[in-house]
């Protein structure tokens, strides 16, 4: 098995890659909408890219939603791009140096044709900024082939197959991404996961990457021996990588097994022309078919010679060849699905109807058939796709782009784009990368995370927590706060690792809080001397209500008490019980605890109170004995 990764990470820059719009996502309703169509353009040699052609055939209309504060004419493809964002380029070059890649001497921005509507222009702007380098996984090196800087695509809002209208939001379009492509040096699913993790760690070291779901996306190239290169797009979670790789490998192996079986049975897969079978289903009791006919469609079918039994062939766990076929028909022709002979009689289709279809299509015992219920042109398009894919089954794996599903399986997305899709972006000047720039950037690379980890340990953070803290997505916030309040290291680490994790597990949207809000909250909390639990409550309040940070902190500290206040209560109780303490020493703890808890009136957890009281008591008795 050969696996290569393409990691796409959003950069946390002030502006987008080719305009001055901010890179933060928009919230609320869009301010305006407009409609466009895209066309596949021919290259100079008259070649249309297959992936582009595929989209054009689908005849989509794209609706774009814009936001005054987040998108401008550049995202609308109504104004040429501005110059390349130097902040993004510098982050990219620092990343290149960390990976040991060789930066190019001059950056040339290219246009990569993409006409699924996710880019208003019909292309994605991308620039190769460095080549080579690698990452270490134990003793093994996984080579890096390229580092590219590119603009993120628009966010898909909805897609209506029946009208062909696809809606996108433009706020994300143009956000800088760094794309790191590894060589196909990865040979196991586990290694794929480990490599992605390591690259993520290197990216986080730069402290200039965005956090949260969707800010890092992995594409995976997988091919097995005898298979073909399959690109799986859009893996958003690290944990899914090894799953996707192993599913995709199994699927390819399955297709190869199917190929061998088919080759034993037939020299080539022959598929008949589509036949109108509507009259065979005039009195059908099948709800699926009845519904399709009611909405003006017909039943159409093809005979697939020698294919009986192969539609239900399991190409991968839970994935039959028939459901693969349905994916193609859905994606390309926009039909709801299809029915194949291996699953009939079922869905209310009777044996009599099956026999009638077989008669009309002229099926022999080894032949299979596929039915589509739809309006004629759509059905015929779907069946021609089915015919093509069945015929290709005898070749094994078809090179294509697939989409990762949340369960780790993959689905056909579109044909693999060819090399005709890339040409220069003439509106953006080249950017020279000089050795002076590189040496300046080299000295600006933040220290490795290990350094931060040991600093945390030196600030009395447990080594376990320190390890977690440097993995935190809130690294920037943590570091800013550490610079301001190193004494609060323990609190900050706990809150920014365990507490935010727990909160987001509870469904509290802390991840969506902007850095500056969390910073403001932590600053206030440290100043007020709040307890960890109070900070967590304040975070919850800010994330789930409309309260400002100030209001939340106020509310929390009025219903709870700060560490300072708690200490003051403890001090006063100790002061008024001096005799008791000197008489009973450490045994005075129990009665004192009762007194303190009465005064605290539930505004602080007992565990904290007892911990503080024990400490104060110890201090006091030590001081007394020292004085004595």
């Amino acid at each position, binding site marked *: 098995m050969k696996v290569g990764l393409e990691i796409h990470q959003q950069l946390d820059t002030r502006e987008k890659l080719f305009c001055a719009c901010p890179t933060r996502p928009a919230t609320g309703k869009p301010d305006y909408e*407009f*409609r466009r169509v*895209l066309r*596949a353009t021919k290259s*100079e040699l008259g070649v249309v890219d297959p992936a582009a052609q595929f989209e054009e055939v689908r005849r989509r209309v794209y609706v774009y939603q814009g936001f005054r504060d987040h998108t401008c004419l550049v995202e*609308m493809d*109504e104004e040429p791009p501005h110059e390349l964002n130097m902040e993004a380029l510098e982050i990219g070059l620092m990343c290149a140096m960390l990976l040991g890649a060789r930066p190019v001497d001059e950056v*040339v921005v290219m246009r990569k044709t993409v006409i699924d509507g996710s880019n208003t222009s019909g292309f994605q702007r*991308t620039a190769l900024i460095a*080549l080579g380098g690698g990452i270490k996984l134990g003793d093994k090196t996984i080579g890096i082939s390229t580092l590219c800087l590119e603009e993120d695509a628009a966010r898909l809002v909805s897609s209506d197959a029946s009208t062909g209208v696809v809606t996108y939001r433009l706020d994300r379009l143009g956000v800088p991404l760094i794309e790191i492509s590894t060589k196909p040096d990865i040979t196991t699913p586990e290694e794929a996961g480990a490599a992605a993790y390591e690259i993520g760690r290197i990216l986080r070291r730069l402290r200039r990457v965005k956090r949260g779901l969707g800010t890092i996306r992995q594409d995976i190239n997988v091919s097995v021996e005898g298979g073909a290169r399959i690109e799986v797009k859009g893996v958003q979670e690290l944990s899914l990588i090894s799953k996707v790789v192993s599913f995709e490998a199994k699927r390819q192996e399955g297709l190869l097994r199917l190929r061998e079986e088919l080759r034993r049975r037939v020299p080539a897969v022959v598929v008949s022309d589509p036949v109108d079978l509507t009259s065979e289903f005039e009195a059908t009791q099948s709800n699926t078919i009845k519904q399709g006919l009611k909405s003006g469609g017909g039943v159409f079918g093809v005979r697939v010679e020698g294919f009986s039994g192969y539609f239900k062939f399991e190409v991968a766990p839970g994935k039959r060849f028939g459901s693969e076929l349905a994916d193609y028909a859905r994606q390309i022709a926009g039909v709801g699905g299809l029915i194949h002979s291996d699953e009939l009689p079922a869905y209310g289709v009777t044996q009599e109807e099956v026999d009638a279809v077989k008669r009309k299509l002229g099926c022999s015992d080894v032949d299979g058939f596929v039915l589509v219920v739809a309006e004629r042109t759509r059905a015929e398009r779907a069946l021609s796709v089915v015919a093509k894919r069945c015929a290709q089954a005898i070749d094994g794996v078809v090179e294509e782009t697939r989409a990762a599903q949340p369960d780790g399986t993959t689905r056909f997305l579109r044909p693999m784009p060819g090399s005709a899709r890339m040409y220069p972006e003439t509106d953006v000047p080249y950017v020279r990368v000089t050795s002076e720039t590189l040496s300046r950037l080299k000295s600006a690379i933040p220290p490795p995370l290990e350094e931060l980890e040991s600093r945390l340990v030196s600030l009395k953070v447990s080594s376990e927590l320190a390890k977690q803290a440097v993995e935190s997505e809130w690294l920037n916030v943590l570091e800013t706060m550490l610079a301001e309040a190193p004494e609060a290291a323990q609190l900050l680490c706990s809150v920014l690792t365990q507490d935010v994790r727990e909160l987001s597990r509870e469904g509290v949207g802390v991840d969506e809080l902007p850095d500056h809000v969390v910073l403001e909250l932590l600053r206030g909390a440290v100043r007020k001397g709040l307890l960890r639990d109070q900070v967590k409550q304040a975070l919850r309040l800010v994330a789930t209500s409309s309260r400002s940070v100030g209001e939340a902190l106020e509310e929390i500290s009025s219903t709870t008490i700060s560490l300072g206040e708690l200490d003051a209560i403890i001090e006063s109780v100790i002061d008024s019980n001096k005799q008791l303490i000197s008489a009973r020493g450490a045994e005075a703890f129990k009665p004192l605890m009762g007194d303190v808890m009465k005064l605290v009136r539930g505004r602080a957890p007992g565990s904290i109170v007892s911990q503080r009281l024990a400490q104060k008591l110890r201090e006091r008795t030590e001081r007394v004995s020292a004085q004595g």
Partner: protein
Amino acid sequence: MCVLGESRLEGYHGLAYRKLVEAGVNVGDTVEVSFGDESFVGRLMPRVESDDDSVVTIKLPNGYNIGLSVVDASVRLVSPAGGLHQQPPVEEAVGFGAGEYVALISTGGTIASRVEYETGAVRPALRASDLMSLVPELEGISRLKTQVLMSILSEDMKPAYWERIARAVYSELEAGAAGVVVAHGTDTMGYTAAALSFALRGVDRPIVLVGSQRSSDRPSSDAYTNLLCAVKFAKESFRPGVYVCMHASTSDPTCAVIPGVKVRKMHTSRRDAFKAVNTRPVAFVDRDKLVFLDESSKGYVVGGGVVFKPGFSDKAALIEYYPGFSLDILNWLAEKGYLGVVLAGTGLGHVSSELVDGIARLRRSGFLIYMTSQCLYGRVNMNVYTTGRRLLAAGVVPLGDMLPETAYVKLSWALANYPLEEVDGVMRSNLVGELSARSVYSGEWT
């Protein structure tokens, strides 16, 4: 057509040029650029003249272009380019019956240019027939007879070219085209539209100028819709006159058809940059329908036939007034032999009162001076303020709601086709809709 231009090392100079010549390499060849132990193989790409002279651009096998400094590198030819920049031959259709077809005249500009995929350079060299292959739907609308009249950038347009275009359009109409579509760069398309309006006054069929704001190499180009709508209007509207047909809004697929003397490019880059000023579009067009805003004018035929006067003078000028404007500028024009000037004055049609006496002197010497407004929207009225009245007394001729650019084109045309003493009269009269008597309210201002 030679796509790469004259040089086989286009855009290279200085150090990079010398190293490439030494290596015997041409643009398009596969080369190896080596730096000691590392090397890069790719196809040599042309560069822009002003770029850093120590860098070569190569296209890697993955399609990306990168720049490499050759200061410390050696360059070696790996393999020469093979048959790359060849254009397939295009067969032009022959044998057209009168009224059956639309003539498509290409003059250059973004709509008539195409990107060279190898280099990304946009070149104004597209055959008009290639436009047809860009928009196959055209076949369902009309047969097309195409010609490349010229291939120039919009900003290089000049009065002499207006005449050439006018003659080409005229002969296509004589030959029996149902209508003529002129593909043009957008920057000066409004000027050419006005020029054709005057040169072909009384024309009985549609002449439609069309351009694009996004080059046709990109999937999002407005060229497709604009061209489709322009041809549709030329073939199906039966509406005589000269028009500009461009996107009506930022959305596809509707175009606005705007009178050629009342149209102006009002935005540097938007698709809907062209606006009807002091009027409204005559129609909206899309692939399926043609909607006239004024039903009564549909099929309107001008009597008396076309008055073909294609000449334009280069002795007219257009000057925008600004605070601090010096009379020297107008004096210089007169000294240099210019016969007249259109001023784009402030507001209702003013220039500084300090200029009045000098302007009066110029007028007395026979130099023609016309007043339009830099506000563009609305009409000049020089009776409201003292300065206006004094300018009128000094002999400045107010041009109502005529656009400054239209007035300039009209002056250039009038100077070439009428005796000097008749020019004021020509300028004052409404010949092709450039002057309207009424200012119609067009709704809320945005």
